[in-house]
């Protein structure tokens, strides 16, 4: 277990900066998830921490000690790869023993550590098998076991569940959460799957274009995204956005008008002092839209293009008169059908407001 600090960490390939000066402090025992779209730099950042990529500029400290120049084996980390990366010619036991043998640990200690890790992961019966004789889930468990026996200060997971099918992914996700609880270790986990991020993380780091967009607890990111990118990335289906402008300002709210909606008073909590006439983006999550019973609540009217019935809920894709497409998540079992005209309403307290630069103002 250890703390980990990145200060102004930068990675460049020639003239191209892929990681642009990241500052991040990870506490002892914390489970931090790096999340972002493909190419955002999350795996590169993890590999920089592991020592598999050089850090072009900035500093990495693990447990307070600078690690930029240290080889991966000397950083006190263990890594679990997406492809498992098990040595195909070695048995499960030998896979787990390889690193310890290289570290010249005594035979008894190696054996004890392997059996302990195998016990934690319930795979004692697999120790003599080759990786080719294991299922995907079992292989991933061995890869985690190989990491555990190293007794690392920091566990690094690089999209460890991406190669598994949906059901196995759910069970392995729970297993990793259980493992974190048992080992109480510092863990950094990379994924593009926001469900994994939301369910596993103590804190989520949202990355885009090599820049940290927001760091926070899962519900903090969901309830108060700092910018349009985070608002659109966290949540499934993604948040609906409306382009509009400020048509009035009050002490605790801003009146926003969009082509789709009438003037709406949006509560403002930030210190921003928006001016009338400025362009803004208004966001509302699909689950915060409801099918209207009356016309008094703020909302809009559109035509249903597609209905996706998921059982307990349905997703409605709605086209508005100005061409905007909106997704609404409503209770399942309704009689909505494509082609119907529908009015949806929302509570202004659930609205998110972003300025022209995409930064949150309310």
């Amino acid at each position, binding site marked *: 277990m250890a703390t980990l600090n990145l200060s102004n960490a930068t990675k460049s390939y020639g003239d191209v900066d892929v990681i642009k000066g990241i500052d991040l402090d990870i506490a002892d025992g914390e489970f931090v998830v790096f999340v972002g779209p493909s190419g955002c730099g999350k795996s590169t950042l993890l590999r920089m921490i592991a*020592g*598999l990529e050089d850090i072009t500029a900035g500093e990495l400290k693990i447990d307070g000690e600078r690690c930029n120049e240290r080889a991966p084996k000397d950083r006190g980390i263990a890594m679990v*790869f*997406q492809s498992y*990366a*098990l*040595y195909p010619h070695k048995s499960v036991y030998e896979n787990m023993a*390889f*690193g310890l043998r*290289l570290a010249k640990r005594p035979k008894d200690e190696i054996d004890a550590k392997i059996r302990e890790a195998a016990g934690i992961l319930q795979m004692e019966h697999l120790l003599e098998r080759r990786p080719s004789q294991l299922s995907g889930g079992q292989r991933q468990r061995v890869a985690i076991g190989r990491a555990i026996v190293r007794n690392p200060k920091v566990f690094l997971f690089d999209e460890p569940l991406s190669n598994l099918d949906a059901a196995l992914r759910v069970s392995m996700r729970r297993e990793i959460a259980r493992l974190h609880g048992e080992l109480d270790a510092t863990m950094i986990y990379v994924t593009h799957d926001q469900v994994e991020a939301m369910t596993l993380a103590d804190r989520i780091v949202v990355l885009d274009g090599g820049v940290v967009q927001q760091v926070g607890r899962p519900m903090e990111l969901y309830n108060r995204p700092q910018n349009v990118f985070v608002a659109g990335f966290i949540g499934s289906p993604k948040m609906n956005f409306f382009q509009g402008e400020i048509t009035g300002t009050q002490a605790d709210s801003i009146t926003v008008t969009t082509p789709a909606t009438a003037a709406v008073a949006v509560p403002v909590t930030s210190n921003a002092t928006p001016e009338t006439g400025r362009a803004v983006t208004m966001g509302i999550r699909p689950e915060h839209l409801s099918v209207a019973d009356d016309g008094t609540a703020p909302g809009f009217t559109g035509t249903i293009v597609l209905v996706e019935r998921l059982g307990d809920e349905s997703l409605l894709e709605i086209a508005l008169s100005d061409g905007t497409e909106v997704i609404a998540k409503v209770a399942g079992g309704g009689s909505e059908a494509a082609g119907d005209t529908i009015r949806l309403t929302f509570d202004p307290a659930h609205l998110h407001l972003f300025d022209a630069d995409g930064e949150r103002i309310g």
Partner: protein
Amino acid sequence: MTGSTRRAPFRANQAGLSHYALIFAIIAISIVAAFPLVWMVLSSFKTPAESMQVPPVWIPKTPSLEAYSEVSGVINAGRSFTNSAIIATTTTLGILITSLMAGYAFAKYRFRGRNLVFALLISTMFLPPIVTLIPLYRMVNSMGLNASLVGVIVPNLANAFGIFLMRQFIAGVPDDLIDAARVDGASELRIVFSVVAPAVVPAIAALALFAFVFHWNTYLWPLTILQGNTDDYPIVLSLGRLLSYNRGAMNTGLVMAGATLAVLPPLVLFVFLQRFFVDSIVSTGVKG
């Protein structure tokens, strides 16, 4: 459905015809290729009279091992075989080690000029060996290694084909596997021999076979560098002495017996490793 069931027998017949044509072609080519080998083995059991008979005798009437016992009387077969084994084995080991290391570097390291250096290396594969014979001789001679087995072996401890073959196979080894070994604390040498090598065993076996057979059979370079030091002659050079023995009436049976003995070790090796040999050709699209 009906259409497909009507067409199916037609396709089956076509496949059948081409299948038989292929088998016929394989048998015909195999006979042509195997003929000299079979003729060599059969001739080694003939008496001198049968060897010279016209029309030729195909199967010896009274098979004799006389020629085999005579071989040892003419050349020091044991010494020659030992020399061949030393040359072929040492060179093969050297090629395997250098090819693995260089192939790994070309496949997995990113460095400036990598592709240019690799292209230069590959281009040496297209040089006829005769072109490099004199410069190589002068180099080895200047090192004082002429007329010795070391001189035969040293210039062949690395070769472009081996590096090319290994690079192609090692490129297919997942980077994650190598990264996992680095995280585990393995040095680059350890990664090459403990992680990468076991992942490319078929290529190693194929290269071992290529190298062993080539250097067992190599003639021109040992002849040039050994400078008549017959004690260090490999079996292939010693066979020449069988040809010149009893020049008045050449004993074909004797030469064929010597050649049969000489071909046995690479043949046995090929039988054991032929699966890897075929795999490597299929995988790289390279003709050996």
